[in-house]
Every structure is written in C-alpha cells, then in structure tokens.
C-alpha cells in the first residue's frame, strides 16, 4: 500500500485526467483527448477505465467492478484487487451500495441513483471509425454534426438483413448534438443511458480519449421512423433466478446442443435467487 501513491497514479497524471473529465462533463459525449499512461495491464483490459477510476477515487468510496455484468470474472477481479491494493478502498458486489462502478460492457440491472458514478471501459471511442478511418475526417464530421454516413450504415443494415443488425456498441445521439459510441454494451442497455440519475464517464486508454454523460442527459439511439430502435434480449427467462426482464448470457452446457440462459448481471441474479 505505502509503495504506491494513493490510487496508483501520480498527482500530475491525476490532475491531467481530472481536467479532461471536467471538460468531458461540460461538453457531453465530446471525446476529450488525454495523455493516457501505460498501466500495469495490457491495452484492451480496461486501462482507460482504470485511469478514470484512479483519478476519481477517494478513500471513502465503495467500488464495484463488473466485466460483462459479472463481479467474478478475471478482468473484474483483477481490477478490483488492484484498487484494493493501491487505494485501500471498500469494495462491494451490490450495485446499490457502490459509489463508483467500473464496468466492461454492461450497465447493471438494478436502477442507479443520484451520486453514483459509472466508469466504462471503451475500446474504440469513435463511433465513426469503422466508416471513416482518418481522425482528421471524423473530427471534422463531429464539428459539422455531419452524421449522414452513420444513417447510411444503419440503412444498409436494414437493406441487407431486414433490420438494424448492430447488437452492441449501438450508436446514440446525445442532447441532439454529438453521436457517441456507448462502448460495447448490448443495445438492451442503451435506454438506461437516457436521463440516468448517475454520472457516466467513459475512458479509452489505447485511443487516449475521455468522454462523459452528466446525469439527466438526453441519449437517443439512432433509428428510422419506420424502423424504430428496439432493445432486444434472448427470448428466455433466467434459469437460476427466473428473471424475464434482465439481459441473458447463453451458456453451452454439453456437446449435444444443451444450453441454458442466465442473467449476465451476477449481482442482480444472486440477490433475486436469495430472496
């Protein structure tokens, strides 16, 4: 514990990230460049989220870390123990008890409340990147709010597949201005972003970008009048807790076609199963 500064990062780095975070909150969903540091874990393991969490943590926080909804998978366990070692903060698996929730690719099922901070790990923060590889061009497109290309992409989905085939990292428009990548959360979670009472922070370490959604911000999933956005999930109930309203993981149980569907949010599922 005493081998590290509080929350691992040095104070200069935390100040730099904190300034970026304040700009990000002031310009909702605009991607603020920041000088991402090398972290003691590989890119792609949540280095952006870890840096944002480190810059936000204070000693009396209660931290929850989830990976695809689960508290007990490798990424979640290692990041949680990283902050237990370097910041000595309390940790929890209960969504309601947490003051900061770092997440990889899910938003918890239990409703968030005012004062909570969600920190998302983001691999590719630029929603237009797969349509236009040049940063200079995507930056100009954001400046001009020129998002026709994204609508064409969604239209081509419909022309090819009969529906918008994007199932995760489904693009959203924030406060009628910037188009934003909500990180690879399933589109089932998109409605939870809209008008949320919690503060949402997004960190992309390799891509060196930070962006944010303040509480009570309008977040609309892109769609068409005749093909409205629909949040989808597997048409089953959870085998363990019976929930019909939660996002489900499909688990293969044998090599003869056996499968089961269980809640991806382990905390939600175990609390339901216990009660």
């Amino acid at each position, binding site marked *: 514990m005493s081998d590290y*500064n*509080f*929350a691992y990062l040095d*104070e*200069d780095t*935390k*100040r*730099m990230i*904190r*300034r*970026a*975070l*304040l*700009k*990000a*909150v*002031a*310009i*909702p969903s*605009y991607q*603020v*460049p920041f000088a991402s540091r090398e972290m003691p874990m590989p890119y792609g393991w949540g280095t952006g989220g870890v840096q944002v969490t480190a*810059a*936000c*943590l*204070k*000693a009396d926080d209660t931290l929850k870390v989830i990976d695809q909804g689960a508290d007990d998978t490798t990424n979640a366990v290692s990041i949680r123990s990283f902050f237990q070692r370097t910041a000595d903060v309390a940790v929890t698996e209960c969504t309601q008890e947490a003051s900061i929730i770092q997440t990889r690719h899910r938003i918890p099922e239990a409703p968030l409340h005012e*004062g909570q901070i969600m920190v998302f790990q983001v691999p590719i923060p630029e929603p237009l990147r797969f349509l236009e590889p040049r940063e200079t061009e995507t*930056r*100009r497109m*954001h*400046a*001009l709010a020129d998002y026709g290309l994204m609508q064409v992409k969604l239209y081509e989905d419909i022309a090819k597949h009969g529906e918008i085939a994007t199932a995760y990292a489904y693009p959203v428009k924030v*406060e009628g*201005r*910037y188009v934003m990548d909500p990180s690879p959360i399933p589109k089932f979670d998109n409605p939870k972003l809209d008008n949320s*009472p919690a*503060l949402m922070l997004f960190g992309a370490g390799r891509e060196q970008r930070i962006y944010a*959604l*303040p*509480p*009570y*911000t*309008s977040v609309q999933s892109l769609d068409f009048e005749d093909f409205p956005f629909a949040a989808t999930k597997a048409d089953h109930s959870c085998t363990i807790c019976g929930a019909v309203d939660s996002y489900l993981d499909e688990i293969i149980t044998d090599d003869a076609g056996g499968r089961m569907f269980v809640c991806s949010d382990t905390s939600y599922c175990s609390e339901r199963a216990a009660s």
Partner: protein
Amino acid sequence: MADILAGGFSNAPHQAAHAFRVALDAMARPGTRHCLETAKAPAPLSQAAATLLLTLADTTTPVYLAGACNTPDIQAWVRFHTGAPLAQADAAAFAIGTWEALAPLERFATGTAEYPDRSTTLIVELAEFGNDTHRLTGPGIDGEATAYLPGDRLARFPLGVDLFLTSGATLSALPRSTKIEAL
C-alpha cells in the same frame, strides 16, 4: 507580506481527490452549491477558488489572475503551490477574478469546432451568492433548476467557457451546456 508558504494541501492525494469530486459533482449538476474549504490563499482569493487551483492547476496550465486577484502575494502563492505559469487572458487555461474583472469574456478561448475542449475555465469570485436570478435547463438538471448567476456568458455550444462560481467556501458551476434564462 503574507505567508505564501502556508495554506496548501497537507495531504495532497486525499485532499485533491476530495476536492476534485466536489468540483466534478458541481460541474455534473449545474447550479448546485457545494463546500470546498481545504486550502487558504492570501486575500482576497476565496478558499473555494484556492482549493480548485491546487486541485486542477499545475506547470502545464497557464493561469490568469484578473483585477484584485493579481497581487504579488497571490502570484507568489500560486507559483509556489502549483508551479503554474501566470499568463495573459487569451492564453489562460484558468482565469480567476470577479465578474467585473474578468469582463469582457470575449478575450478568453472558447475552443474550436474541432477541439471545443481548448477553452478557458473561469473561476468567478463572488462577494456572495445572492437570490436566484436565472432558470437553468440542460444536461445534469432534472427538469429545471434556479440559481444565482452574476450575468450571461458566451455559449455557442459546443464552444464556450465553463464557469466555477466561488464565494468563501462555497462552490457552484455552470458548464457551457447549460441553457440559462433570466427570471
């Protein structure tokens, strides 16, 4: 000469973390008032403004001291505690002063269309928070809120300056995303 060595953080990692979360909460919920009182700079700088400076300013962020804040004592305090270079208004990352001393706001950077984040953050020192003068709507506000503001500011979203309002140990914020309307 005031004791410019005094009034800083005694435990920087924890005090800065606490102060940042207060500032983040203020920026995320425009118009709400918060308490920030850890640092103490020479008069007339408020505790809230002094604490914000220690939390956010360093050698990479030029600071502009406006009007009555531009005293040798405060210059020395800012230099010693943050290392921030003192700069003119148009080059500042942070500018501190009363509403009157900061005017005209046109001289501060509001960012560019491609990089709206390259803007000045103003720390506006108030004698006191008066009665609510404006109705606020926009991100961070559930429906609408009312707050005391010393006046209107430039905001051509996404360009604009972000404001922290400080008085004594009280802090409030007004990001550029907030739409304001006089009551």
